């Protein structure tokens, strides 16, 4: 009798198979492995589904989940409402347990869903082409930097300090090995945006790309048009966007972006401690052959029927090997399909409403905090659904400890990543924060600060 639900072999089958192969026992199949390697795994014995489920439920309960608190923390991962339909569909076995669509005839579900995803990203970003996903926002930025260098052969990347700190670190890690220089551009201390004048001084013939957040880490909408105007025709403008914001704010492609990347988690994906997220990547048509990642295209079958296939695979590692545009192989296809389902369900109006409600709440909270003793807005630039204030009287860490007692996940503490901002905090609201949660927060802040 077999011993494991995932391993079907019975004793009798094993014996028949060994006999057929012509060996006496399983050991013979490992004869080519030198015995010097023999060892005994030091792990617990197998257990059962019931006990594993029980243990993991206990561990899950040891965490505080976002549905139990009022969430005012964003900083790259956002708490939006995820309609029930999303997981009901995305968890269908045919999506969940399929491989990369190497056989397009039996992968039309994957391929069409990703083709639709690409179209949606193209619509959001205002660029002609998008790939079918990257790992996350950070690696998408890093790959955009590498792509820029491939496109124009220059060797310096200017990255806004107002961009997410982790994105900057990852970009530096990626660029470092290829000896690409990465330099940061300061933000204006009053507006919280990249200062065009400052950027201008840093531009030269070595600059391959300028990387800007939209909105940036402080929630502020950078003026892409002004930035673009400063760049020579070879320098690429790489924009790192929050996809939700793009229903309200002008498409970066329209404002001159050459590459738009970002974190697609807000599009129906769970926060999941930040992983798996969803990197998205769009660019101009002329650069498509320099773009990393898998791309899906429309095709006709022998009967003239429309279908979808992976295209431009000669860019990819499995064909091009050491000359590939990137080493990316497994991507985040499932998260991309989740995003496609989310965008299909929310649609044009729904996504805009999510953005609008997030925006409205943040601006209300901002105006209320502006009038609060001991709290001071730091930046005057226009913002989406996040903003920075400085706090007096106690540290943001202490403040957050107090708020947590009231089931509030307070703002992101900035001092560690931005010591120049002192005791400051990044607040975020989304449509999933209720007005009553905001009033409750305000009440607690009045008490604490």
């Amino acid at each position: 009798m077999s011993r494991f639900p995932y391993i079907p072999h019975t004793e009798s089958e094993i014996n028949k198979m060994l006999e057929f192969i012509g060996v006496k026992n399983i050991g013979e199949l490992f004869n080519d492995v030198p015995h010097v390697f023999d060892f005994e795994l030091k792990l617990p014995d197998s257990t059962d589904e019931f006990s594993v489920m029980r243990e993991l439920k206990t561990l899950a309960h040891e965490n505080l989940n976002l549905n139990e608190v009022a969430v005012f923390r964003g900083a790259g991962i956002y708490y939006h409402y995820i309609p029930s339909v999303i997981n009901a569909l995305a968890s269908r076995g045919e999506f969940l347990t399929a491989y990369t669509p190497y056989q397009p005839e039996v992968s039309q579900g994957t391929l069409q869903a990703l083709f639709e995803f690409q179209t949606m990203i193209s619509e959001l970003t205002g660029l002609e082409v998008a790939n079918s996903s990257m790992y996350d926002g950070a690696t998408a930025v890093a790959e955009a930097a590498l792509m820029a260098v491939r496109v124009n052969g220059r060797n310096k990347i200017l990255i806004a300090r107002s961009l997410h700190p982790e994105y900057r670190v990852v970009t530096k890690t990626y660029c470092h090995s290829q000896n690409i220089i990465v330099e940061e551009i300061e933000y204006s201390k009053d507006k919280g945006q990249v200062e065009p004048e400052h950027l201008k001084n840093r531009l030269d013939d070595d600059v391959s790309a300028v990387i800007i957040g939209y909105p940036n880490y402080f929630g502020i909408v950078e003026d892409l048009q002004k930035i673009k105007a400063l760049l020579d025709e070879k320098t690429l403008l790489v924009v790192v966007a929050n996809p939700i914001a793009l229903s309200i704010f002008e498409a970066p492609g329209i404002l001159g972006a050459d590459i738009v990347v970002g974190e697609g988690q807000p599009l129906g994906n769970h926060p999941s401690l930040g992983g798996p997220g969803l990197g998205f990547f769009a660019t101009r048509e002329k650069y498509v052959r320099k773009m990393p990642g898998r791309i899906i295209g429309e095709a006709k079958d022998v009967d003239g029927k429309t279908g979808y296939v992976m295209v431009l695979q000669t860019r990819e590692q499995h064909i091009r090997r050491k000359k590939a545009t990137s080493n990316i192989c497994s991507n985040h296809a499932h998260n991309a399909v989740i995003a496609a389902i989310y965008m299909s369900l929310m649609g044009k109006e729904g996504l805009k409403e999510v953005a609008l409600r997030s925006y409205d709440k943040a601006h209300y909270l901002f105006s209320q905090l502006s009038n609060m003793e001991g709290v001071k807005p730091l930046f005057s630039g226009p913002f989406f659904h996040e903003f920075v204030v400085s706090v007096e009287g106690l540290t943001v860490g202490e403040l957050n400890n107090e708020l947590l007692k009231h089931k509030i996940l307070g703002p992101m503490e900035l001092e560690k990543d931005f010591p120049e901002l002192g005791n400051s905090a990044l607040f975020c609201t989304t449509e999933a924060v209720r007005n009553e949660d905001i009033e409750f927060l305000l009440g607690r802040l009045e008490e604490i600060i």
Partner: protein
Amino acid sequence: MTIFEKSVKGRKGYSLPKEELHSEASFSGIPGHLLRKDPPELPECSEVDVVRHYTELSRKNYSVDNGFYPLGSCTMKYNPRLNEEIASLEGFSYLHPYQPVETIQGVLEVMYDLQNMLAEITGMDAFTLQPAAGAHGELTGMLIVKKYFELRGETQRKKVIVPDSAHGTNPASATMAGFEVVEIASNESGLVDLDNLRAALDDTIAAIMLTNPNTLGLFEKDILEISEMAHKNGTLLYYDGANLNAIMGHVRPGDMGFDIIHLNLHKTFSTPHGMGGPGSGPVGVKKHLEGLLPVPVVRLNNDGYYLDYDLPNTIGKVRSFYGNFRVILKAYAYIKMLGKDGLKLASEMAVLNANYLRVKLSKLIPPSYPGTCKHEFVLDGSKLLKEYGIKTLDLAKRLLDYGLHPPTVYFPLIVHEALMIEPTETESKDNLDKFAETIEKIVEEARKDPEILKNAPYTTPVRRLDETTASRKPILRWRREK
């Protein structure tokens, strides 16, 4: 029909809280040119439209849940539903990466334990769970190699040796980390040619990337000699863990002398492939490289679990946050379920299945190399091409008509008309028999009427697609017809 063609202006599939807005869409602070003029053309559908559309799309996919999926080097084993249920618990799915560590102790325990369990399984000393996929793990590993030699001042080590049988990601990752790739030819047995290797090894070689068993499913039995050669030369040995499913509980890369390893949790540890991802590619290292791992690393002290950013020699970060946590969780549950006995048995049955199928199929299509294989094996389809004019691709497409997924084709590159087959341990003898019978039927068809194969498939949602034109004149997004 795409979802865009099902859209009707003004239709609605969502509902949002009806709270009053504080300021009805006031954008007074925003410069006009930054406000969107033409909103993104996303589809407008009712909820049932969306449900039907994606239900229908899903039904056009073949998946492990539909049947045998013997893609070589992909380890398409069964993905337990238990793990999906666990990953969907709110206490795991609704967590913010910047929550205080006191509020995510359950998560950190999972990560800490998994780091240790993977170290035990592979014989390494320390693990990072940060990389998002196998290739991402390779890159991480190569960055560690790079940093290691930077710290040692051996900056002349600019090259990485990769066998010609390696996965495409190996050279791509090495290149991406700034190395030059030296490809060495395998010997006539499909193994690393020790003479070629010796000749290539000099003080410019930073690392050798190997997978063992290799992509031919063959165990590199000279691995200790290779390891000795490498280390004597001051070169690091990198292990591509894509093929770990063959050897769990039998032999450990760490014991073979490897310095760095990545694993594919979505292969060996059964987290689903999700149409191509998300995966997870943890990287393990020996003690001397531990300080170079990306930050943060999960550690335990008297106060509980915490995220340690204090690694002065770290390569930095290879992605945001801490890894694909929900994927990691599924691997954790899988290891818990199987335990030491189950993991070992899984490898044994994977190898048994591969050898059983190899012997069965060898009568129809010759194997590219003789002898016992590990978890996968490669057949040489060139005989079919010569005798019947049938390409491996034709055979693959014909399999689709029989409701089966084809093996990996045209890889590894060193075999002509390669058919690379990895059955995995979760397939039963019946399924292997049925697959072999179908191959026999198709080879018979090839003999009698090769046109049947050349025009296959016939019964799939679409038939053979013109991939060449699709790449030459790419249509990469839907557009409304004018």
